[in-house]
């Protein structure tokens, strides 16, 4: 076997092309050739050619009905595409790899592939990254492996915060809370809820924060927990317009244990005018009295 990758690729191509003399393609040998060529290209740092060779090898493995190897080759191809900087390609290749993993019936590597894709493109194509993260999380949840989804949700939240889409970030955090609830990971759940409240407050949406807090208080354990108490103190500090209290709470240890992105938001609290909220709550009280009568 010649070790020149170009020759190998040419040979493999000949093996797979159907002509008058060749009635069925010899995928086994072709795949072997493609793999060897791809490795050789990778060593020679010819990423473009290596990527192509890996793609062809993966197709060969598919023809040999071994989706696992096919998926592995796709992943290698995608990693090379990352080196090249073809972000769209990266996303596509990783998606293809994840589909092949799902064919094997292995959800964990599938979601891993999507996670790697999202991490690779999140700087350049954040929306695509969001989509990839969401798909990865749903894959895991379908397979009842919620625990693994935590990290993905956290990364998703970070992306949203970077894009300054705070409602989306809070929604992602609430989904984290839901996943944590399913696996009885109460600490992560409460931290997720507190982070959601902080995100709403950072977006200066006190009403939403209060609503969020009330929703989360439906869970009795949350009310009595450290995070619940911190959340309630934050909300009451906001409604009283007590800036020092807010600053003090943001420095407290409970906030410090949350995610980095959330800590950064917390340190910047309070944003906007806090005293205006006081008038708002007074109006709210007036309405309440009307409702009672």
């Amino acid at each position: 076997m010649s070790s020149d990758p170009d020759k190998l690729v040419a040979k493999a191509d000949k093996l797979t092309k159907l002509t008058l003399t060749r009635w069925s393609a010899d995928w086994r040998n072709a795949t072997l050739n493609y793999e060897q060529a791809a490795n050789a290209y990778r060593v020679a740092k010819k990423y473009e050619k290596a990527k192509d060779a890996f793609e062809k090898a993966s197709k060969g493995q598919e023809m040999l009905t071994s989706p696992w190897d096919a998926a592995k080759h796709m992943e290698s191809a995608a990693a090379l595409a990352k080196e090249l900087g073809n972000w769209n390609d990266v996303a596509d290749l990783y998606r293809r790899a994840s589909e092949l993993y799902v064919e094997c019936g292995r959800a964990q590597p599938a979601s891993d592939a999507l996670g790697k894709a999202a991490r690779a493109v999140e700087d350049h194509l954040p929306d695509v990254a969001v989509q990839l993260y969401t798909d990865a999380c749903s894959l895991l949840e379908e397979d009842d492996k919620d625990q693994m989804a935590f990290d993905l949700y956290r990364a998703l939240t970070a992306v949203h915060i970077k894009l300054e889409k705070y409602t989306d970030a809070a929604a992602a955090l609430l989904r984290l809370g839901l996943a944590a609830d399913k696996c009885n990971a109460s600490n992560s759940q409460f931290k997720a809820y507190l982070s959601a409240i902080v995100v709403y407050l950072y977006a200066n949406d006190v009403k939403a924060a209060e609503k969020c807090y009330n929703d989360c208080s439906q869970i009795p354990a949350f009310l009595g927990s450290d995070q619940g108490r911190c959340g309630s103190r934050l909300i009451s500090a906001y409604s009283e317009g007590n800036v020092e209290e807010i600053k003090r709470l943001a420095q407290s240890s409970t906030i410090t244990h949350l995610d980095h992105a959330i800590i950064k938001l917390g340190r910047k609290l309070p944003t906007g005018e806090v005293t205006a909220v006081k008038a708002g709550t007074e109006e709210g009280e007036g309405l309440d009295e009307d409702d009672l009568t």
Partner: protein
Amino acid sequence: MSVIDILTRVDAICNKYDKYDVEKQKNLNVSGDDAFARGYAAVDAEIEAALEKAELASKEKSKASIVALNAELRRTKAKLLEEVPKLQRLAIKKVKGLSTEDFAARNDLVLALPDRIQAIPDGSAAAAKQPGGWGPSASHTEIKFDSDGRFDDEYFQESEQSNQFRQEHETRKRRQDQGLEMISEGLDTLKNMAHDMNEELDRQVPLADEIDSKVDKAASDLKNTNVRLKHTVTQLRSSRNFCIDIVLLIVILGIAAYLYNVLKK
């Protein structure tokens, strides 16, 4: 058992039952009519019991039992002090068959009783510490006033000493508070880390189970393969023996053919 042991045991038993003996004698002497003697004997016995308990309390190591014993002692003392006025009244009453000396003696005895009762140590004596020793005094005992109730103006004046003491107390309390806050933050971090570790372990339990089952399957597959390999190898070897058999057979045939040729000639 040595002789000494026997002697001690007999002594102890005699002491125990001596009590009953003496009581019987006293009762016989008193002929059951003298209420004073009976009451006095009862109070005496209770004082003795209280003294024993006080000794036990002073030897006790655990604070809780000391406190319990002291409380019981105080209760007994209060009860006995109540009995004393009754006994006093009885002592004044004239009983027939009693000499004047005995009568006077009774009065003295009754007067001595309160002192004896108060003298029973019950831990409150130890609590009258000087307030110069700082920090909250372990006052599980009664509050004792040093000045016997003379609360004149001078008493409540702030002296320089007490001011200083109060300031020192405040500074030390503040420092303690700071230290405690640091400890509390450290504990918070520890709690958070412990929770996270807990969740991580929970996450890894099903993974470990999967690894377990997969490795089991792989191990059994290997065993199977090994057994089959062994069979194949033995077969091969025996087939080598088989080849040797064939070779020898050919040699014999060759020899037979040669002999046949020789004989034919």
